[in-house]
Each structure stands twice: as structure tokens, then as C-alpha cells.
């Protein structure tokens, strides 16, 4: 099959590799119909995630059609068109028993600090990803969700990560009515978090980035105020001025370890790798929040350490909340939002390209060329998946 394989930093290749096989009685094999390139894939692409092995298949956002199921699979049938949350999770461990599916304890032997995720290095369990024609899906009875017939496939593929992560970013901010919310990063996650902040009753939503095309997108997509940090001398002072010298009630870090905006952070974190990436956005978030405010972190950082002003966070009495999104617990609610038109995730998609052109797609996204916000990959064997087929079993949206 054709798959996106990692070769070296800044180089992936669409290459022929062996098809995946069932390795566990609860597995399914899924033929991928759509896959996305995520902003966090760029951390892999840039060689920043430890234990990213040459030949690994990337991709944790995908939809597909079930081709084969293991002996124990009961709830999923061959032919079902499913969206697959990026978390691999067992459903029964202590974390899953608390609905923390992004922190499953039974799926990642390599790191206890990290849950399981598709196509995200051996630090996330060593699973092959979905930027391929086929993918192995563990725990097929609980992970995948059958795509409801009225949900567009491009909305479905964004429900595997972008929408739940953006929503959870806002949710972890514990937004109250009329709160001022600052979102650092106008990538797909930041844009979705900004939109969701309004749904939770924010009074002001401010998006910070350095690319004008993304800020323009934020104004259009999320009706947000925008700040280009390249035009600002000091981010914390600027946001204090914007908020009557008080600071924001909620700051969301939707950037993670490759933030620009501070030469020392970039040099030490990204170039020299002496810390787990550049924590510039997190630094700004802590220093821009009001006393007693909340900082929500969904930006991805490496596993070692980062230089952030934790003393200021303590002195200001901030609440810091962070996690990988627990996708499955959000899905029923978010599917309803998409169905009702309250969220329109596929408006984020700017590029649709064949899987064969994945190298160029990664380069375009990494270099922020051609107005790229979100890229969807279409594998050669995707088939006619532009219209979701009638589900052969009812969509499991009964969680709430």
C-alpha cells in the first residue's frame, strides 16, 4: 500500500509498504478515505519528537471504511464508514474509567507519561498512522464512530482531532459569561478554540499569531479580534492594555513547542534542543493572564522540560489545565454542533491533495505557503467517499 513514511527531518515520502494486518482480536483494518496533516505532525516532521523512527507512518486524523475485523469485534461491521479518534484507548483502565481516553494506560509501553496515538512516534506507542491507504485500528469496538449519514466526510475527518481539541482547549479555560479569552496560535486548533469560546459565552475573543493570512482567517472564521505579534513590542503589556491593564481571564496556548517570537526560546528550544521546544506562547499566556485567571494548554511540548515563568503563575494564582483531547467523550456533543451548523469545521480546509503528493503538502504547511491552514490527503483507494454512505449500523452517539 501507499503510505506517508518519515525519512529525515523535513522529509517524508509517499512509499509502498506492506499492508497492515490484524494483530489483536479487537483490531480492525480500515481503508482510509481521508486523512489530514495536523500542526502537531510538523513537530514529527521537524524531528523534534524523540523516538521518531525512519519508516514510521504518520497521521492521526483519518476516516475510513472497515475492511476487516478481528475475532472479538462485535459493534463494527465490514463496510462501516468510520471516523477514528486520534487516541488509541482501551476503555477499561483507571484513566479510561474516568473518561480520560487520551491518557489510557494500556496502549503505550514506551512512555507512561503519554497515551496512545496513531502515527505519532514510538513515544506515543509506536502505532502506524492513517496517512496511508490502510491502517490498523486497535479496540475497534470503542474507538471508531460510524459517521452519521448527514455528516460530511470532511467534517468527519476534522472531528477526529481538530474540533474536539479546539473545543477542549476552550472548555479547560473554564470560560464564564463575558470572559476575555486570548488564543495564542491561529492554526486550525486555535481557530476552533476561538470559535468554541463564543459558544461558551466569552465576551471578547482575541487571537494572536504572526501570519496575516491566518489572522484574516481568524477574523472571518471566528469573528475574533486579532494581534500580529510581529507588530507588538511586548505581548504581555499589549494584552494588558487591551484588557484595561487587568489581563485576560483565559489564555489558551494552541501553539506548542515550535513557537516563534522569542529568539532565545527558539535558539535554545528548537535549534539547540536544550529544552523541549520553544515555550514562547506558554510564557506569554502565563504573563498575559489576569490574577486568578486560567491558562489552557493544548499545544504539544516535548517530554523533557521547558523554561516557563512558573513563579509568576504561582504568584498570580493561575489555574493551569492541559491535556490531550479526550476525543470520544466530546464526539456526540460536537456532532450535534456540526449537524446544527454551529460549528463548520470543513471551512478550515484550504488544500485537498492526493496522498502521492504528501511531501509537497508537508512542505507547504510547514513553510506556511499558499495560505495553507489545513490540508486533507486523499489516498488512491479512497473510493467514492465524497458522500458518506448510509451507515449500516446506527451511529453510537448515546454517550450523553
Amino acid at each position, binding site marked *: 500500500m501507499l503510505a506517508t513514511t518519515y525519512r529525515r527531518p523535513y522529509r517524508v515520502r509517499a512509499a509502498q509498504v506492506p499492508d497492515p494486518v490484524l*494483530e489483536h482480536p479487537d483490531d480492525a483494518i480500515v481503508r482510509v478515505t481521508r486523512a489530514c496533516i495536523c500542526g502537531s505532525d510538523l513537530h514529527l516532521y521537524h524531528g523534534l519528537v524523540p523516538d521518531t*523512527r525512519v519508516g514510521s507512518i504518520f497521521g492521526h486524523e483519518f476516516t475510513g471504511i472497515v475492511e476487516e475485523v478481528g475475532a472479538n469485534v462485535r*459493534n463494527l461491521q465490514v463496510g462501516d464508514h468510520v471516523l477514528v479518534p486520534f487516541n488509541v484507548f482501551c476503555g477499561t483502565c483507571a484513566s479510561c474509567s474516568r473518561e480520560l481516553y487520551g491518557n489510557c494506560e494500556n496502549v503505550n509501553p514506551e512512555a*507512561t507519561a503519554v497515551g496512545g496515538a496513531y502515527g505519532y512516534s514510538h513515544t506515543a506507542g509506536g502505532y502506524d498512522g492513517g496517512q496511508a491507504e490502510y491502517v490498523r485500528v486497535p*479496540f475497534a469496538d470503542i474507538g471508531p464512530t460510524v459517521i452519521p449519514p448527514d455528516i460530511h466526510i470532511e467534517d468527519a475527518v476534522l472531528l477526529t482531532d481538530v474540533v474536539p481539541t479546539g473545543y477542549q482547549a476552550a472548555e479547560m479555560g473554564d470560560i464564564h459569561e463575558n470572559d476575555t479569552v486570548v488564543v495564542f496560535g491561529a492554526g486550525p486548533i486555535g481557530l476552533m478554540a476561538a470559535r468554541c469560546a463564543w459558544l461558551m459565552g466569552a465576551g471578547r475573543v482575541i487571537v494572536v499569531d504572526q501570519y496575516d493570512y491566518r489572522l484574516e482567517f481568524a477574523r472571518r472564521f471566528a469573528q475574533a479580534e486579532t494581534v500580529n505579534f510581529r507588530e507588538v513590542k511586548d505581548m504581555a503589556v499589549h494584552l494588558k492594555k487591551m484588557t484595561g491593564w487587568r489581563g485576560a481571564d483565559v489564555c489558551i496556548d494552541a501553539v506548542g513547542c515550535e513557537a516563534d517570537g522569542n529568539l532565545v526560546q527558539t535558539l535554545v528550544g528548537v535549534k539547540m534542543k536544550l529544552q523541549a521546544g520553544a515555550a514562547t506562547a506558554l510564557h506569554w499566556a502565563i504573563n498575559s493572564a489576569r490574577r486568578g485567571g486560567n491558562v489552557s494548554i493544548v499545544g504539544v511540548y516535548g517530554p*523533557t522540560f521547558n523554561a516557563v515563568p512558573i513563579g509568576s503563575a504561582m504568584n498570580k494564582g493561575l489555574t493551569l489545565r492541559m491535556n490531550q483531547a479526550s476525543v470520544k467523550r466530546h464526539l456526540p456533543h460536537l456532532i450535534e454542533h456540526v449537524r446544527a451548523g454551529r460549528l463548520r469545521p470543513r471551512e478550515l480546509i484550504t488544500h485537498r491533495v492526493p496522498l502521492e503528493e504528501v511531501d509537497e503538502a508537508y512542505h507547504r504547511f510547514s513553510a506556511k505557503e499558499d495560505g495553507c491552514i489545513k490540508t486533507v490527503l486523499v489516498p488512491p483507494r479512497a473510493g467514492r467517499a465524497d458522500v458518506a454512505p448510509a451507515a449500516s449500523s446506527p451511529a453510537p452517539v448515546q454517550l450523553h
Partner: protein
Amino acid sequence: MNPPSDRSQIPDWGVDLDPGRRPAVPMERTLPRLEGVHWERPTQQRRTVEILHSVERPGVTPVFGTSVPPSGLSGWIRRRAFRRSESDMRHWMLLLLADRVNVVEGLLDDARRSPRARAAAFGLAGAALAVWVLRRRRA
């Protein structure tokens, strides 16, 4: 910079204002609402390739990925990395080192598989041999 938006102009403003409508509140929700689970403990996956595991857990997890098992010099370094805990900086630095070594291994592997690279290697080897033979004759 643009002026603040008027919340009355925001479609669906406040539809999830009530925290009770937010699906991840409270953060730890028991009992979980997940349906379809029909096991108490996951069945152990059979190990078909070498799987490294953190020393912070007793063994491999019931389910794991089998992508790209450790091999070569990079695999040797990875095995040594996994002798140290996740809380030991050297664990991660060794893994990053192994990743870089693995890139070189990948380039060599590419060269081995590429007909052009093979031809170039044979050409270089032939030229080196010719130079060596000529030098010996002069001597």
C-alpha cells in the same frame, strides 16, 4: 488589530455557557459513558517484534504498536535509552541521538536500494581500485 465583536452578532453565542452542557466537565467523570466495552481487561497482544518498554512500568502494555522495531546502531542506542526512566533526561537525549543515527541508516538504505546510487558507488569503488593498482605499479 480590529475592533471587538459584538456578542449579539455572534451566531450561537453562549449555547454552551452552562458548564453542565460541556462534555468534559467535570474533568474526571465516573462512571464513564462509553458503550461497546465487552472486556474487563484487554486481551494481551502477541509480541511478534521487539517492543521496548519504559522502566516505569512492569512490562509491555496489553496492546501496542509494532511499527519499525529497533534495529542497527540506532536500535542499540534505543535499547540503552530504555534502561533509564522517563524522568532521566538521558533517556530522551539518547532517543534523539538514536533518531539522528537512524536518519543516516535510512540514507544508506536508500542508497543501497537506488540503482543510480549503486552505480555511483560501483564507479567510485572502481576508480579507487584503479588508482590503487596504478600506484602499486609505479612503486
